[in-house]
């Protein structure tokens, strides 16, 4: 039977104040009601994995969190502030504290890997001297084991490499809150585990909170303090990995069956 390699819950027994508070969130595109009264809370230092079928609205959820999409109803508070009512400047300040890993990586194609990583760093004035910036960039690339890709263009990278660069680019600002959109999808099991461990390391080192969207149950088991299952636009079930895997509900069980 499965032996859970690390029960992450024990490592961090208690969490701080809530960083994200989502209640009754509604978001639709025309007649397509994607989020329908969705609730979720994420506290400081906590990793929450969101599971859900493809196309159920997971990416839409975290895009609402970061203000890329406007929601219609309900409340979504990040760092205690309602996202929809923030002014552009306040939103930008908040976004500097949030890291976002795109499902599609979204690397800037006209820039090298180095410039990709430097882009936000320079504009937020982190890393005063060139030396400092270089050091941060190299350190981050080392973390994703892509130090030798520093001068390549995104078009010269493989899908998995892009994914890791995308990750490095968001982590370099040392955000308090990370939103990962399928960080390990499409990676080999070894790299996927490395990435999962890195996400854990970030959590422990900087007390980062995260929402991790993933289909990769191994990654979910490693990284999650808590999981939420999204079905039909609502938070259908919530709990630790063990709680959910023992749950007697066919819809929830479907996610844990393959284990």
């Amino acid at each position, binding site marked *: 039977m499965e032996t859970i390699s690390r029960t992450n819950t024990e490592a961090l027994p208690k969490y701080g104040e809530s960083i994200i508070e989502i209640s009754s969130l509604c978001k639709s595109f025309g007649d397509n009601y994607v989020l329908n009264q969705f609730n979720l809370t994420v506290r400081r230092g906590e990793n929450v994995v969101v599971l859900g079928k493809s196309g159920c609205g997971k990416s839409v959820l975290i895009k609402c969190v970061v203000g890329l999409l406007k929601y219609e109803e309900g409340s979504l508070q990040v760092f205690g502030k309602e996202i929809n009512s923030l002014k552009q400047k306040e939103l930008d300040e908040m976004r500097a504290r949030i890291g976002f890993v795109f499902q599609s990586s979204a690397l800037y194609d006209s820039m090298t890997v180095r410039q990709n990583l430097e882009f936000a760093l320079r504009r*937020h004035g982190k890393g005063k001297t060139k030396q400092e910036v270089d050091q941060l960039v190299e350190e981050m690339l080392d973390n994703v084991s892509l130090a030798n890709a520093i001068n390549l263009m995104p078009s010269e990278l493989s899908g998995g490499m892009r994914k890791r660069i995308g990750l490095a680019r968001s982590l370099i600002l040392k955000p308090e809150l990370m939103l990962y959109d399928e960080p390990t999808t499409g990676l080999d099991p070894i790299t996927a585990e490395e990435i999962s461990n890195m996400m854990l390391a970030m959590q422990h080192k900087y007390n980062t909170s995260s929402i991790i969207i993933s289909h990769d149950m191994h990654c979910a088991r490693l990284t999650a303090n808590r999981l939420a299952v999204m079905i039909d636009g609502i938070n259908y079930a919530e709990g630790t990995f063990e709680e959910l895997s023992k749950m007697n509900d066919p819809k929830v069980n479907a996610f844990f069956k393959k284990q």
Partner: protein
Amino acid sequence: MENNPAETTPAKKQSEPIWVSVLPEEFRDFLNEVGEIVRFVMRFFREVFMPPYELKEIFHQSYEIGYRSLPLVALTAFIIGLVLTLQSRPTLARFGAESWLPAMVGISIIREIGPVIVALVCAGKIGSSIGAELGSMKVTEQIDAMEVSGTNPFKYIVVSRIISTTFMIPILVIMGDAVALIGSFIAVKLTSAISITLFFNQVFESTDFSDFIPAFVKTFFFGFAIGLVGCYKGYNSKKGTEGVGESANSSVVIASLLVFIIDLIAVQITQFFGYL
């Protein structure tokens, strides 16, 4: 359940005044678009003066936009100058006014043909490349990625490009004018023994600053319009590959149209001020 995610943002259910809902759909869409463009322009003017300034990117874009367009502009201008001269000669010859050829061609090129031809060539080359580049950045979520990192993509992408086109098109026009006049000189030289000094003397004797200044001023507007349209279309590109093609295409069409409209307005204004 793949219902096309093509921008089906919910129909805005703001309470509209009666007279608005009476208007035909197409006209309302048109007004909406005009409103969006006005907002876009206002945002440009708000952000262009606010620090931080993306100077490095402005220089980079000026190089891409200006220097890279030079061969095409020069070639087109040369051919236009040559052909215009060759075509005008028989008509002037019929009135025995062949010696006016340099003056006539010079005035046409400096006042009208140079600026408009160069602007149209640039609307095609620069407008489409900006439209396609920004369109694909939008589609691959690169603009969103800049936005979520708390940096200002509008300033980095849009403002730098519009500034570059606004200042590069006038420079390209001046160079285009010069090359067109050289083309014209070669055409004159084919049939009459005229020195280059004499040719340019004749050109400059018959033109003065009142020919040059209004023609030069309007090129800044041409440049602004080309950059603006490319950026607007690309920045608001629809999702998908089609969206990119569409933004490139409509950038060229609208920018070319705007060049003519601005030209028309500029002519009216210059006439009004008596520069005839």
